[in-house]
């Protein structure tokens, strides 16, 4: 790696770390004011938890010498022999390992205890994420080796987190009043700020995944910008037509949906293909977030509707639009006659969804059975901030 490549990956790593505080604000603005600190805390503390897990053994389980395509060996336990470029790669990947479980926190908002979150995240970051990362990112991971491609984490990050969110919600149950009363965001400006930070960070997320300051990075950068923009356009247009009102929450959610959907293909598709992916993600995710009301699961901040659905849309459309001209590292998609690649992408989606759902469901059950998952009725009514953290987010007039 040249100094230029190192400079870019260092920058990208910093930007990706910044995404987690951004996510905290994005989610924090969407909960009621009595639960915002708990939301922020769950995200910030996830940074600490995963950093420790990743340094000690998460990294080696994901990127250590391959064992049967399923998991990495223990050769890099405690970062043994991880130096120079490998150390840079380790920390860049660490940021992904951090934000993935953090994404789940949006689905369990306003009712999952903090202690339960700490335990669940620790287990999930140790047992679920490294495996999926190995399959999708490690050259000898069975999905990657088979030809599946996931440029920056459509499978590994978004589908993985989105389906885990669904599993945990099944165990946790809905918030009091879900479906009956409208539970409104307490501060949309906070959510929009979070969106801006996420958008910024995503350039590091996607363009940084080129691991070099080269043409692939540039392509990923451009497709990221286009995917986010088109999805916001798609989402807002769809809701404008349905409700007659374009909303800021729609614009924010649409942008994130587009960023999610372009993630798997950012370095593999053309800018024009990114327009298609973004538009599709915006419209489909808008439709998807209404499912929870109809099906009755309380995915509070739409992790399923945005990250799972957006990740699936992006991973599958990559199977259609991938172009070996853009990046020799991928085989052509359906559109260019690569039906095999398309099928592999679909299979990969199913495999990751199945594994992550089952594993996450079991971990949630374990936490429930041991220390309990859910806040008491009183805690939920009075708010998690004051009852679990004994803090108040806003104190005015003093």
């Amino acid at each position: 790696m040249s100094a230029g490549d190192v400079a870019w990956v260092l920058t990208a790593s910093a930007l990706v770390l910044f995404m987690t505080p951004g996510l905290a604000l994005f989610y924090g603005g969407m909960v009621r004011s009595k639960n915002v600190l708990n939301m922020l805390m769950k995200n910030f503390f996830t940074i600490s938890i995963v950093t420790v897990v990743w340094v000690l053994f998460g990294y080696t389980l994901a990127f250590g010498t391959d064992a049967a395509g399923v998991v990495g060996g223990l050769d890099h336990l405690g970062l043994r022999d991880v130096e120079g470029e490998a150390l840079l790669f380790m920390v860049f990947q660490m940021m992904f390992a951090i934000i993935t479980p953090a994404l789940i926190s949006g689905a369990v908002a306003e009712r999952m205890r903090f202690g339960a979150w700490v335990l669940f995240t620790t287990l999930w970051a140790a047992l679920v994420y490294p495996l999926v990362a190995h399959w999708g990112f490690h050259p000898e991971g069975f999905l990657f080796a088979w030809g599946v491609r996931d440029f920056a984490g459509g499978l590994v990050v978004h589908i993985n987190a989105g389906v885990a969110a669904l599993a945990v919600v099944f165990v946790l149950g809905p918030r009091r009043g879900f479906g009956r009363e409208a539970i409104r965001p307490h501060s949309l400006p906070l959510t929009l700020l979070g969106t801006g930070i996420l958008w910024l960070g995503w350039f590091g997320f996607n363009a940084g995944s080129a691991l070099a300051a080269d043409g692939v990075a540039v392509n990923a950068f451009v497709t990221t910008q286009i995917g986010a923009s088109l999805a916001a356009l798609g989402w807002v247009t769809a809701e404008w037509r349905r409700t007659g009102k374009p909303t800021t929450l729609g614009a924010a959610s649409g942008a994130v949906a587009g960023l999610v959907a372009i993630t798997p293909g950012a370095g593999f598709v053309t800018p024009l293909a990114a327009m298609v992916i973004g538009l599709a993600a915006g419209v489909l995710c808008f439709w998807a977030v209404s499912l929870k009301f109809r099906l009755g699961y309380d995915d509070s901040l739409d992790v399923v509707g945005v990250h799972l659905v957006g990740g699936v849309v992006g991973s599958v459309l990559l199977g259609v639009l991938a172009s070996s001209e853009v990046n020799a590292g991928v085989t052509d998609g359906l559109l260019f006659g690569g039906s095999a690649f398309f099928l592999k992408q679909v299979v990969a989606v199913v495999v990751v969804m199945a594994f992550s759902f089952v594993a996450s469901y079991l971990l949630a059950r374990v936490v429930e059975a041991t220390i309990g998952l859910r806040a008491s009725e009183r805690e939920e009514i009075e708010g998690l901030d004051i009852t679990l953290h004994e803090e108040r987010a806003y104190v005015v007039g003093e």
Partner: protein
Amino acid sequence: MKLIIAYVKPFKLEDVKLALRGLGVSGMSVGEIRGFGRQSGQTEVYRGAEYQVEFVPKSRLEVVVDDDLAEPAVEAIQGAARTGEIGDGKVIVVTVDDVLRIRTGERGGDAL
């Protein structure tokens, strides 16, 4: 003396204030409340679903006046706050036993 309590549409507060000043009312106290009544609350959209907020934000003003000013004040408030639409609000009149100005200790009418 009378304590007049009125719930009015916030954007009408300005006019009400001027109307009372016109009567020589020296001061008043205003707070914000959530009003429930015939007027239905604003529609809001969340995740593509529209729903109605149950309450309507209103300004609640309190003004103490001498007995003879009570009726004119009530009418002034009505005149200024009226739009003719549902939700214009109410005016309530309550008898006051005594009023005191903290600064001077004056009582009754002199306290206003």
